[in-house]
């Protein structure tokens, strides 16, 4: 019974049906389904499937954005029902588009996919100065610092973030993951970052991989 409505939520989200997603979320809560399960086994599972379809080029960014928006609205319905629990997360990430670059779509998609994979994400926005990444990472005890960029002129700022993380005694064990149009394995090695990914769903997998090594 609970399984059915959860599956229906997954289906609604995967078919990018906003109305249906919201109605089923309400119905599940009325039926007494655990709100954490609605979120994890319904909405987030659905978003992960959308991410998979995107990875396979069945879906494109329009779909991912609309699914994420539907999830966000559904989450507003769930939130009041959630007991404030310290449920374990996959890790804590501080993310931003580096200084000198204002492209945020890649960064936003990575944030969506990280959250879908149970990461706690602090999004610093765009045009973020290297020191800001460090300050926030120290404040929240970040496991990962994630830098996004599209414009190659912003590459030196990524190098700065890597250097600052390495120099900061309070960030031992914090890893740097990078992504964006100019990034390849060779560029990642050149910059000294710990990991990279060619797209947002791979970025979440790379983040999980880096957490295993942590």
């Amino acid at each position, binding site marked *: 019974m609970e399984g059915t409505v959860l599956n229906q939520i997954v289906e609604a989200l995967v078919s*990018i049906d906003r109305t249906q997603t919201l109605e089923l979320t309400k119905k599940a809560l009325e039926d007494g389904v655990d709100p954490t399960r609605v979120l994890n086994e319904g909405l987030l599972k659905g978003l992960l499937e959308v991410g998979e379809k995107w990875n396979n*080029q069945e879906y*494109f*960014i*329009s*779909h991912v*954005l*609309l699914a994420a*928006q539907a999830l966000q609205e559904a989450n507003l319905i769930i939130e009041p029902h959630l007991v404030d629990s310290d449920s374990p997360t996959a890790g804590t990430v501080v993310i931003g588009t580096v200084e*000198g*670059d*204002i492209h*945020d*779509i890649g960064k*936003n998609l990575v944030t969506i996919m990280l959250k879908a994979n149970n990461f706690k994400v602090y999004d610093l926005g765009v*045009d973020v100065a290297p020191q800001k990444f460090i300050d926030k990472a120290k404040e929240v005890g970040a496991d990962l610092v994630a830098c996004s960029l599209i*414009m*190659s*002129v912003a*590459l*030196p700022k990524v190098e700065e973030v890597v250097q600052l993380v390495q120099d900061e005694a309070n960030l031992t064990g914090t890893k740097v993951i990078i992504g964006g*149009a*100019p990034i*390849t394995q*060779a*560029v990642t090695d*050149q910059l000294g970052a710990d990991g990279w990914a060619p*797209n947002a769903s791979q970025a979440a997998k790379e983040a999980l991989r880096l957490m295993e090594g942590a």
Partner: protein
Amino acid sequence: MSKMNHLQRIAAAITHQKPDRVPVVAVTISRSLKEAGYSLKEVVHDASKIAEAKIAAHEKYGDDGIVASLDLYVEPEALGAKTELREHVPIVTEHPLAKDKDFSRLVKPTLKDGRFPVVLEEVKLLKEKYGDEVCIGPVTGGPITTSANLRGVENLLMDMVLDPSYVHELLRLCTDVCLDYYRAICEAGAHAIIMLDPVSTNTIMSPEQYQEFTMPYQKELFAVCAEHSVVGVNHICADTSLIWEKMINVGAPAIQIDFPIDLEDCKKRVGPETCIMGNVNPIETMLYGNPDDVYNAAVKCIKAAGNQSGFVLTPGCDLNPKTPEENIKALVQAAKDCAYDDDGNVQF
């Protein structure tokens, strides 16, 4: 074969005649400012300084084409997007339609507004200097990219699903602005126009969306180029392998391919009608590699797509200003070392 001048060499590649050697454009837009010792701030509204920088870079590297203009924000800026100058490039800091999608409050600019006159003047100055010796072509933004700069790319992508007719209306406005601009560029004496349309890339838009929202408007603009016998170049960044067959069907005789792409596969699929420009990796190879890496990568590109003409060697995108001088020279040298034999195949 008798020596051709720079423009003749590129024209031969575009028209699938045999050039005396492989043509090359180093795409040193932001790099050129460094060659002339200018900061972006000093030149952004000064056509003669921009032209001076482009001339300095061309004289130093001896490549076959000069890319005019500095960036793809000229159109959105004139339509009301707020930009800020950074060290090497301007960036858009405010999309005027992000919160309120109604564009009736935007004022349709004339060619006297914003930086349109700067680009047109730069083209004229370069033409005065080189006439028909060197291929001169400015970069412009494509209509969907300009629309994204006004509305915000995420909003626009959702609009494509939820309100496609709105997207078409916005594209109409952007295309109308571009149509006037393209005519003026052609009349200023450009040999080519390079339309930068990064939003159309496969990692952002689906092939169906490219067909619906990009192609019709690209067609209108490339038709203006064709009317003026100016070469249209369809440049879309990053992965475009899902849409090559569409990219060659918008009236542009050349497509420029970014770096993550196998040019041999591209040449096969694109066929003999379209000229391919590309695609040495501008970061991994041009910025971080050494001259040997650059030379070898360039040779690989030439071997993959150079046979039977229809090829211009370029980096995948604009070079980072910190790209080592020796690397840019190695790129140009690779093209200079490469002639065509009697069968039209490249020989080193």
